[in-house]
């Protein structure tokens, strides 16, 4: 039984991690494509249209990868988490089915129209199809987040005697207090990723001294979007989410902040340190007193319950992983704000394209927003443990009763091999597209 749970969790963690590399780019990128296309409609300057079409090519490759790695996610609810599906399908089935029907269809149909239909439709309709792609991908985020919000903070249901969750109030799923902050935080974080991708391709073109006109445009757009989104991710949305965790999942809050002991006079904020689960303390800690209490409750001396306040069985089962995920996310987010602020300063002085060290930094920072997005999700998911539905259904109670660990390990190994191949092909293809660069409009 323990084995089954372990492999089911490992397979889900692996496949969702790989999957979420793609949607986090497409959601943010679709917004920037809409911007480029809109700018073209307004200014009639061709390079904006070239940029929109170039990034739609990158979008399309990512979308395909998102589709083929996304179908296994939907299937896994049934294959590996059958008991969970049986008990909660009446609720999360609603939001997941809506995602498939509204957003996924919208996105895929209009993507094809955007790519093939520019000449056929004219520029205004072409803009509109781009806008619908954006709408579809963000709606997708909305429905997935509403599913996850219900698991983090279940509302609008009733539990029957046989353990089944049945829907009692449909609209409660979308007015869930967990949903809006999580959605905004997640969408803005995906804009951070896409901004870094756009800016780093720009930096690459400027540094290699080819297609520098596009390079400068991408740099400028990426830096402006990146600066705004990096700030909004931290404040107000990140802050809002942290307060939600403190309110609804206090055990998780203590664990992710690394607060082992309850301090009556207010808790410190931990910057660095390694959780020592044997002695129940942080090793090599650097912390600033009372800041956590202030940030969370705007009171310097507010008492925050530490890990010592909770029963072992209600605490997340992997506190170090949760703690690191959270701190990596926050640390990287802070670095992004710094780098983007610096880049924005030089952009304003019209010197950004000449400052090589900064261009190199922007170019090589591109993997890190991906890591920040993923560790953010690890924080949410590890933090919800040991529950699937917070406080109501344990993760260990959700697995498929008849699928043995040997079978799951077999499929996990298969997914690892297949996704390595897929990742390699993806890099080759995107690398080729980036190397070729945008195609200038011919009249």
């Amino acid at each position, binding site marked *: 039984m323990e084995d089954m749970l372990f492999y089911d969790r490992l397979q889900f963690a692996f496949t969702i991690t790989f999957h979420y590399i793609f949607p986090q780019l497409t959601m943010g990128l679709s917004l920037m494509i809409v911007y480029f296309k809109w700018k073209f409609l307004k200014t009639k300057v061709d390079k904006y249209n070239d940029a929109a079409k170039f990034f739609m090519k990158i979008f399309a490759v990512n979308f395909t990868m998102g589709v083929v790695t996304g*179908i296994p996610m939907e299937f896994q609810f049934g*294959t590996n988490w*059958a008991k969970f599906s*049986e008990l909660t399908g009446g609720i999360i*089935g*609603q939001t997941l089915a809506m995602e498939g029907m509204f957003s996924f*269809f919208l996105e895929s*149909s209009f993507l094809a129209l955007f790519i093939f239909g520019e000449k056929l439709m004219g520029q205004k309709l072409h803009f509109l199809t781009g806008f619908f792609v954006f709408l579809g991908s963000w709606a997708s985020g909305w429905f997935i987040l509403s599913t996850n919000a219900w698991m983090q903070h279940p509302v609008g249901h009733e539990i029957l005697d046989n353990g089944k969750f049945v829907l009692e109030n449909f609209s409660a799923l979308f007015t869930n207090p967990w949903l809006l902050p999580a959605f905004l935080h997640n969408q803005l974080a995906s804009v951070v990723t896409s901004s870094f991708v756009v800016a780093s391709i720009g930096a690459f073109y400027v540094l290699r001294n080819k297609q520098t006109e596009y390079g400068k445009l991408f740099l400028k757009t990426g830096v402006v979007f990146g600066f705004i989104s990096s700030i909004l991710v931290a404040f107000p949305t990140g802050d809002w989410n942290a307060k939600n965790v403190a309110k609804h999942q206090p055990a998780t809050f203590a664990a992710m902040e690394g607060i082992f002991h309850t301090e009556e006079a207010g808790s410190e904020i931990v910057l660095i340190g390694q959780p020592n689960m044997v002695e129940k303390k942080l090793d090599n800690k650097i912390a600033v007193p009372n800041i956590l209490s202030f940030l969370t409750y705007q009171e310097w001396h507010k008492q925050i319950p530490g890990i010592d306040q909770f029963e072992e069985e209600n605490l997340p089962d992997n506190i170090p992983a949760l703690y690191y995920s959270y701190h990596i996310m926050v640390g990287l987010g802070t670095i992004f704000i710094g780098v983007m602020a610096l880049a924005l300063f030089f952009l304003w002085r019209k010197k950004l394209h000449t400052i090589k060290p900064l261009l190199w930094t922007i170019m090589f920072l591109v993997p890190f927003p991906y890591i920040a997005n993923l560790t953010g999700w690890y924080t949410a998911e590890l933090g919800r443990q040991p529950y699937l539905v917070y406080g109501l259904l344990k993760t260990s109670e959700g697995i498929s009763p008849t699928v043995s660990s040997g079978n799951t390990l077999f499929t996990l190994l*298969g997914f690892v091999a297949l996704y390595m191949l897929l990742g390699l092909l993806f890099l080759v293809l995107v690398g080729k597209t980036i190397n070729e660069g945008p195609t200038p409009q011919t009249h």
Partner: protein
Amino acid sequence: MEIFWYIIIGIVLAVFFILDGYDFGAGIIHLFFAKTEKDKEVIAKSAGLFWDSNEVWLVAAGGMLFMAFPTFYASVFSGFYLPLVLVLWLIIFRAIGLEFRSQFKYQMWKDIWDASFGVSSLLLALFFGIALGNIVRGVNLGIVQNGVAAHEGHYFFLPLWDSSFSPLSEHPGVIDWFTLIIGLISVVTLAIHGANWVILKTNSSINSKLKNIIFILNIVLTALTLFSLIVWQTVNPNSFDNFANKPYLIVFPIIYLTGLFGLFFIKKLKKDIHGFVLSTLLIFGGIASSLASLFPVILPSINEIHEPLTIYNTAASEYGLSVALTWGIIGFILLFVYMIIQKRLMAGKIDKMDYGH
């Protein structure tokens, strides 16, 4: 309300098999009959332009099944664990074959992805047929051994095969001789459907040859259909009761037979679309007849202890189903609107169309 969702999901599934069916079929034709690079390219393109918007119907069907019949979703997806994951892998291989073949001009590169596209299409067609065979035959619900159930009555687990390969065994596997026959029917049907699609959408040099191939495959299909009807009765003895009790259901087998009969005249048909319509009837009629023969059962039990899964004992709550009705109808209409817009914009032969992914 259960019946309504059953019909909706049935239609979405049938649309999925009709739409994605033609690109599976194109893959089979590509694998066996396309010889020149030009034909290979244009046939791959006839699938490559459409596969992703076709596969969203699978996602929609999966989502709706999860919402409306969660117990069935949980039972079937965990019980058919191995074949389902294999299907996922094949879907991925097929997709990368289609998306990557034209990215580089090396012949070896194209050969690899052509094989990946063709073989995965063939195996997927086979697996989908086998899946239907399993649903008709039923499974050992609750994993009963010597009269004792090891699990709750709606859970089961099937190995890929059991040493007897017999559908009448106490613990049949996913693949036995009966499900294999249904699998072959699916392969032949989709090959016909794919050939019709290639004829309809391309100017490939093998178009006239494909009409002969359809004719021959149709003879094979007729033989397989007759044979399967004989053994169907042995595997699932109650399967004709529904047609006797509700005679209007006969319309589905008639649709199937119309397609089958019509396809014998493939060489005389005036328009390419007519052939495609006939193979569409074949698929729709085949799926609808199978489902109608089981109704309201959706997964028969082969042991005496457990009741079969029906649309009633696996459905979500009444409130959930009726709320979903409101958004479901809107969504359902949108699906068809999207499909029609897309098909209209991409109407006609696709040889000249820019494959710009």
